């Protein structure tokens, strides 16, 4: 059914269609409307047979999810930004215990300085936590990925994060095709746990494992993610059969055939990139876009295959590995080892900085001439940065960096690029 709605509400409805049994949420840090929507559906009983628990922190949210999932309930929660970091210990624990929890991460920046806007720092900081991470490009894909995520998580007994850009997707009203309950029921079977807390068959879950077997347990976690590399495209195909549209999969190439330059990205910025590439193609540039949907497991083989005929790649990412550069770029480089490709890392859109077609065109044009720096910060205000560096050389007590930069800028508030 076609409808116009906010991204958060679309996800809330899609999650409800998956018949979750326990939803727990700490709504703030920062907040999206996803759990509000679900809370309302549980309260007015349109989502029957579901417990909705308002917990006191994100750490408790994931802990409640661990308890309910281990008791055999289909469990969901949502978080973002600081909240994801606050629950970090439990996030690792959930995957270590092999509990198929599904969680939306409405991607946002990590402080300090505190900032509520979109980038991918939060979920990418959790890249090694053992969860699968699927990145949605649109609101339609976000809701579709949730339906696929429950099936995937429960099949392989690992938790899945569905990552969608905070604000850009979560707060955007778009047209979505909301599936029918019968379709979701046909796609998603009832949850059959591999392990469950049950007095009829008592087990101890989560006991200590020493050096004798710890490596093997960890290896199996890795092996299960690698298995998912096979399963994710199959699930996308099964999804298409029932729902009639392409959603999910490992990667999504756009106009990559005959491309000399391929720009790689995740999430909603792929839309802007596709428009940019269309324009540049018209101007004669041989350029394409490669969207990565599955960041964990990382599709090394698929990425290498997609890049095999190009001359260079540019990874445009909304995250920064401080002290080295890119996070996604590092993963892509792993995929193209010994392929002899030129690779560029472009850090963009941190803390909600707008990524415009104008800036992308200029940057990609430079990349096409191999004049781009290996690591580039898109639209960085060098004047402001250099002024602060100079100030720090001459003064000891320079105060909070963020305040100094904003004072120099002369305005307080988001800057319009």
């Amino acid at each position: 059914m076609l409808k116009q709605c906010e991204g958060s509400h679309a996800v809330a409805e899609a999650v409800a269609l998956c018949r979750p049994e326990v939803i727990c949420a700490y709504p703030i840090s920062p907040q999206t409307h996803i759990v509000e929507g679900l809370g309302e559906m549980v309260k007015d009983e349109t989502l029957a047979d579901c417990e909705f628990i308002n917990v006191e922190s994100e750490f408790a949210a994931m802990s409640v999810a661990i308890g309910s999932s281990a008791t055999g309930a289909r469990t969901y929660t949502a978080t973002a930004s600081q909240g994801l970091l606050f629950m970090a210990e439990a996030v690792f624990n959930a995957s270590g215990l092999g509990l198929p929890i599904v969680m939306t991460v409405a991607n946002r920046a990590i402080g300090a300085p505190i900032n509520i806007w979109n980038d991918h720092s939060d979920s990418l900081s959790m890249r090694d936590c053992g969860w699968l991470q699927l990145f949605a490009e649109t609101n339609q894909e976000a809701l579709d990925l949730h339906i696929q995520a429950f099936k995937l998580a429960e099949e392989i007994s690992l938790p899945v994060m569905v990552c969608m850009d905070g604000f850009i997707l979560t707060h955007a009203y778009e047209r979505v095709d909301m599936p029918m309950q019968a379709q979701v029921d046909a796609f998603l079977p009832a949850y059959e746990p591999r392990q469950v807390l049950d007095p009829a068959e008592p087990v101890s879950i989560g006991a200590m494992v020493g050096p004798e077997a710890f490596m093997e347990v960890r290896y199996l976690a890795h092996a299960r993610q690698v298995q998912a590399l096979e399963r994710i495209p199959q699930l996308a195909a099964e999804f298409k059969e029932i729902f009639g549209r392409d959603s999910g999969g490992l990667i999504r190439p756009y106009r990559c055939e005959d491309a000399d330059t391929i720009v790689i990205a995740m999430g909603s910025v792929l839309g802007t990139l596709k428009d940019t590439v269309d324009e540049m193609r018209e101007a004669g540039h041989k350029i394409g876009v490669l969207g990565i949907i599955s960041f964990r497991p990382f599709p090394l083989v698929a990425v290498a295959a997609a890049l095999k005929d190009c001359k260079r790649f540019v990874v445009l990412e909304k995250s920064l590995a401080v002290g080295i550069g890119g996070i996604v770029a590092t993963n892509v480089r792993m995929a193209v080892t010994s392929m002899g490709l030129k690779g560029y890392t472009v850090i963009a859109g941190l803390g909600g900085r707008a990524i415009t077609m104008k800036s992308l065109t200029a940057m990609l044009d430079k990349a096409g001439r191999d004049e781009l720096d290996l690591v580039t910060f898109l639209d960085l205000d060098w004047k402001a940065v250099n002024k602060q560096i100079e100030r720090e050389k001459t003064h000891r007590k320079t105060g909070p960096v963020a305040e100094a930069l904003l004072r120099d800028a002369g305005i307080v508030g988001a800057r319009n690029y």
Partner: protein
Amino acid sequence: MSFQPVKFYQTGTFTVGNRLLAPEERSVQASGKRFNSINSGHRACQGCGEALGARYAIDAAMEATQGQLIAANATGCLEVFSTPYPETSWQIPWIHSLFGNTAAVATGIAAALKIKQKKNPRAQEIRVVAQGGDGGTTDIGFGCLSGMFERNDDVLYICYDNGGYMNTGVQRSSATPPAARTATTMAVGPEPGNAFGQGKFLPAIAMAHEIPYVATATVADLRDLEAKVRRAMEIRGARYIHILVPCPLGWGTYSNETIKMARLAKETGIFPVFEAEHGEIKSALAIRRQLPVEDYLKPQKRYAHLFGKQPNVAVIAKLQALADRNIRKYKLLEGV
């Protein structure tokens, strides 16, 4: 097991012999059908108060639920000594997640059980108990515990309080009593041992949440402990039982004196044993024969610095004042 009425009265002890009681009033542990929820063969130290407390508490909860019980366990002594894979002492479904989240994990279990019950009302009902040491309860797990209390989730949380982080080498927790020596409150300097005016008494904080049931107990009064667990399982919502469990390792006491130390804690007023419902005290276990705090302090090496060549009478008097305050506050001489 058959019941033989035997006319036999114990003297010189406060213990009521099981044989004097009707079968339904006997200790759960007196029955051959006891659950052995935490089975023998675990790695607890000799004389471990926590192992004893857990055995009585969980078996009593099992009896109260006809064996339909799931336990969540915080990281700590109890978790470590009972379960290194592939061995486990637990004969009941049991989960360990983290140090600080046990109350929340139990909330999740309760939520899942509630939905399962709703979907299948004819299935036998299953209940939840969460357990942790004082560190996992009063310090790192306090946020999740308070949340569970505040939401009045259907969980019985049991804290085994031995007054410190014993598993990791006896460090101070917020339940470590004043003047006690730990690895992080050494018996050195002008004010040796743990500071006065710090720490928290969690049962009082639990009561402030006005949850349906709060009780304290010690391993000296195991029948009282069992009765409190039974009472707790009759009630729905958040319930809290705080059990004082002496630790021979951390307290520096003989392993055959665990129960004696627990009894001294109660008889001196150092540890008040009471029950509260919805934030109000309903009963307190009376002190039978009041003893000075020295009797409790002296056998413990963690207080040895108070009893050198010159006993530190000022500090002992401060500890006596704390015990006296408990006695007044909880009416421990008269009982309630």
